[in-house]
C-alpha cells in the first residue's frame, strides 16, 4: 500500500478529496450499489469490445461499410450527443448574458453536463475515426479550410476548452485554491460569449455537413436550412436536457440539495418547459418552411414521408404542445415527461438524417451491430460515472460554504 510511503498530508488530501473522508474499506463498500453493479456489467462487455476495436479495426465491431461510412456512433454519440449537450450554452447565455437570474442554480450542473457531454462525444468519435491519434491534425498539421468538418473539429476543440474554463471555478473551490478560482471566474462572461458563438456555429455546422449529400439524403430531410434546423433543435434539446438532468440530480444527490432549492428547481423546470415549447414551435414551423422551400410535398405520401410526418408531428409538435400545456398547468412532473419526449425527438431527428433517411435509395442499407450500441452504452455509462464522481466531490449542486462571499462572474 502507498500509505506507508505517502506523507501524512498527501494521505489526508487523498482521503478527503477522493474518498470523501472515508477509509478505503468503507469507501469500496459504499460502492456496492445496484447501479454500480449494472455499470460494472456494462463495462465488462464494453471494455473487451473497445480492445477488439483498437486491435482489429472498426470493421471488427461495427456494420460500417464502404456504402455506409457513418452509422450509430456518428448519429447517436456525436450528432445527438452534441445537440443534447447544448444545455451548457443555453443556460449560460440565459443566466450570464440575458440576465435571467432565476436559472442560476442550474447553470453549474448544466455546464458540467455540457463539458462532459462534449468530452464523451470526442471519446465516442475516437472509436469512429480510423486514426484517432491524429485528432489534432486539423489544428496542427494540415488545414482543410473548405471543409465544414474542419469547422466542426476546431469548434468542438475550442468549445471543450471554453466549457472547462466555465466549470473550473468548481474544481478550484473543491481544491481550495481561492486565488486561481477568483482569477478564472473573471473569464466567465468572455467565455460565455465565446461559447455562444462557437455553439451557434458548430451546432449548425453539424447540419451543414449533410449539405454536400443532396443525392443521398432523402428530399424531406435535405434542405438548405439544415444548419438552422440543427441549431434550433439543439437549443430545444439542450433546454429539455437540463430539465431531465436536474430532475435526476435532485433525486440522486438529494442529500446535497435543500428543500428551498427543490422549490426553486420547480420554478426553473416550468420556465425551461415554457421556453423549450416556444423553441420547438419555431422549429416545427421552420421544418415546414423547409418542405415548402424544397417543394418536396409529393414525398409526404410515401413510406419515408409518413416517417417524416411522425417525426415532425409526433416528436416535435406533440412534445411542444404537451410542454406548453403542462407548464400552463404548473405541473412539474408533466413538464419533465414532455422534456423526455422532446429529447427523444431530437435523437430521432439526428438518427433520421444520418442513418434512416441517408442512403434511403440504396440497396445496401445500414443496420447497427449490437456491439456498436454496446460501445455507445459503455461510453454513456462512463460519462454518468464521471458526472457522479465530480458532483459527489465538487460544489456543483450547492454553493461552497467557504466561497459564498466571492464573486461569481
Amino acid at each position, binding site marked *: 500500500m502507498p500509505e506507508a510511503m505517502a506523507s501524512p498530508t498527501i494521505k489526508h488530501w487523498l482521503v478527503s478529496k477522493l474518498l470523501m473522508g472515508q477509509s478505503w474499506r468503507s469507501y469500496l463498500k459504499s460502492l456496492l450499489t445496484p447501479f454500480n453493479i449494472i455499470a460494472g456489467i456494462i463495462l465488462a462487455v464494453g471494455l473487451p469490445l473497445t480492445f477488439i476495436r483498437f486491435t*482489429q479495426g472498426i470493421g471488427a465491431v461495427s456494420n460500417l461499410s*464502404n456504402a455506409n461510412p457513418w452509422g450509430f456512433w456518428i448519429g447517436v454519440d456525436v450528432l445527438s450527443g452534441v445537440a443534447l449537450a447544448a444545455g451548457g450554452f443555453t443556460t449560460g447565455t440565459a443566466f450570464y448574458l440575458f440576465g435571467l437570474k432565476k436559472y442560476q442554480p442550474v447553470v453549474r450542473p448544466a455546464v458540467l453536463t455540457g463539458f462532459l457531454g462534449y468530452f464523451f462525444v470526442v471519446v465516442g468519435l475516437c472509436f469512429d*475515426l480510423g486514426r484517432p491519434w491524429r485528432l489534432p491534425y486539423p489544428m496542427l498539421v494540415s488545414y*482543410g479550410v473548405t471543409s465544414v468538418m474542419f469547422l466542426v473539429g476546431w469548434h468542438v476543440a475550442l468549445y471543450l476548452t471554453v466549457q472547462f474554463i466555465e466549470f473550473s471555478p468548481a474544481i478550484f473551490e473543491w481544491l481550495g485554491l481561492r486565488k486561481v478560482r477568483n482569477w478564472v471566474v473573471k473569464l466567465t462572461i468572455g467565455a460565455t*460569449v465565446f461559447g455562444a458563438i462557437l455553439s451557434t456555429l458548430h451546432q449548425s455546422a453539424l447540419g451543414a455537413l449533410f449539405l454536400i449529400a443532396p443525392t*443521398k439524403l432523402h428530399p424531406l430531410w435535405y434542405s438548405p436550412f439544415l444548419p438552422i434546423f440543427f441549431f434550433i433543435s439543439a437549443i430545444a434539446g439542450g433546454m429539455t436536457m437540463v430539465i431531465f438532468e436536474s430532475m435526476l440530480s435532485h433525486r440522486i444527490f438529494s442529500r446535497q440539495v435543500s428543500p428551498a432549492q427543490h422549490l426553486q428547481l420547480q420554478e426553473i423546470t416550468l420556465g425551461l418547459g415554457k421556453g423549450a415549447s416556444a423553441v420547438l414551435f419555431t422549429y416545427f414551423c421552420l421544418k415546414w418552411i423547409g418542405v415548402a422551400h424544397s417543394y418536396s410535398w409529393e414525398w409526404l405520401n410515401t413510406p419515408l414521408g409518413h416517417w417524416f410526418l411522425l417525426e415532425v408531428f409526433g416528436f416535435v409538435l406533440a412534445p411542444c404542445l404537451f410542454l406548453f400545456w403542462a407548464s400552463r398547468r404548473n405541473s412539474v412532473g408533466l413538464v419533465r415527461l414532455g422534456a423526455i419526449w422532446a429529447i427523444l425527438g431530437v435523437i430521432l431527428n439526428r438518427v433520421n438524417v444520418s442513418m434512416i433517411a441517408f442512403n434511403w435509395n440504396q440497396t445496401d442499407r445500414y443496420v447497427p451491430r449490437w456491439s456498436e450500441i454496446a460501445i455507445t452504452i459503455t461510453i454513456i455509462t462512463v460519462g454518468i460515472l464521471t458526472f457522479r464522481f465530480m458532483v459527489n466531490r465538487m460544489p456543483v449542486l450547492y454553493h461552497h460554504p467557504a466561497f459564498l462571499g466571492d464573486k461569481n462572474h
Partner: protein
Amino acid sequence: MGNINRRTFLKFSVIAATLGAAPSAKSQENFSGWPERYGMLTDTTLCIGLNCRKCEEACKKVNNLSRKNLNLSDNSVFEHKRRTDPENYTVVNRFPNPNKPETPYYVKKQCMHCDEPACASACLVKAFKKTPEGPVIYNKDVCIGCRYCMVACPFGIPSYDYFDAYTPQVRKCTMCYDRIQQGKIPACAEICPQEAITFGKRKDLIALARERIRSHPERYHPHIFGEEEAGGTSWLYLTGLDSVQLGFPNALAKTAYPELTRGFLSAVPLVLTIWPVLLVGLYKFSQSRQVKESPESTQNSVEESHAGSNGKPDN
C-alpha cells in the same frame, strides 16, 4: 499523344503549379478547370465484359492489390452489382439493354476524378488534391479517417480499410497518377482489348465523344456523362442508354459540389463578427436593467437563496 506534347504540358503544369496560388484561389469563382488536364473516355458500347475484366486485373497489378478473389472467367460476378472497395479500385457491372436484350451493357466503375471534387472540399485535412494533370489523389499521411469524403462523394467511390486497426486508408482509383508522371497511360486504358477506354486531354476526349455521337446517333445516347455532372469530371462516359439506367446517380446536379457548402461557410465570418457585439450588448443591457430595478436587492436575493440552502456535501 507525342512525348514532346507531354513534356511541354508537364512544363506548363509545373509553372502553373508554382504560380498556382492565384488560379487555384480563383477556382472558388469561375475556374473552369486546369486547361490542359487529362481525362479518360469510357465508351460503354464497346466494353464486352464477359470473360474479360482485363481492366480490373491491370488495375490490381499496378496498385499492388490482392488478386486472391479475382477469377476473370467467373461471370457470376455480373449477377449482382459490385462497388469499389479496398481490393478493387475498379469494377465492371452489367446492365440490361431494353432495346437489345441479348447484348447487355457493361459499365466500368471507378473514381470520376471530378474537376472540383466533393471529397477534396469535404476533407478537413486536405488529404485530397485535384492535380493540374487531372487525377484526384489522396495523401494517406494526413488522413484521420473521418470518412466524410465517402459521405460527400456523389458517385460512392472512396472505400476504407475497415479491418486495419493501425494504418487504415481511404482507397480509390488514382487514374494512375504515377504512370502519367512517368509518361505512361493509365493501366486500364492500356490493357483494354476493345479500346473502350481512351486516355487523352479532356478537351480532346470531349471532341472525340461528340464526333462519335454525331457519326453513330443510333448507337449512342446523345449525352456525354461527366462533361457537366457534378461540375464536370475528368472521366467521361459514352453510353447507349440514359446514365441512370446504367447505375449512375440519379438527379445529379450540374453545380460543382463545393458550391453546396459555400453559402454556409461564408456565413461563418458574419456570426463571428456580429454575435460578440450582439451578445455583449445584451449583457450590458440586462446589467443596466438590474441596476435600475434595485441596485442591491438582486445581488442579495441570489446570495440569500443559497446561503439559505443548507446544501452540505455528503463528505
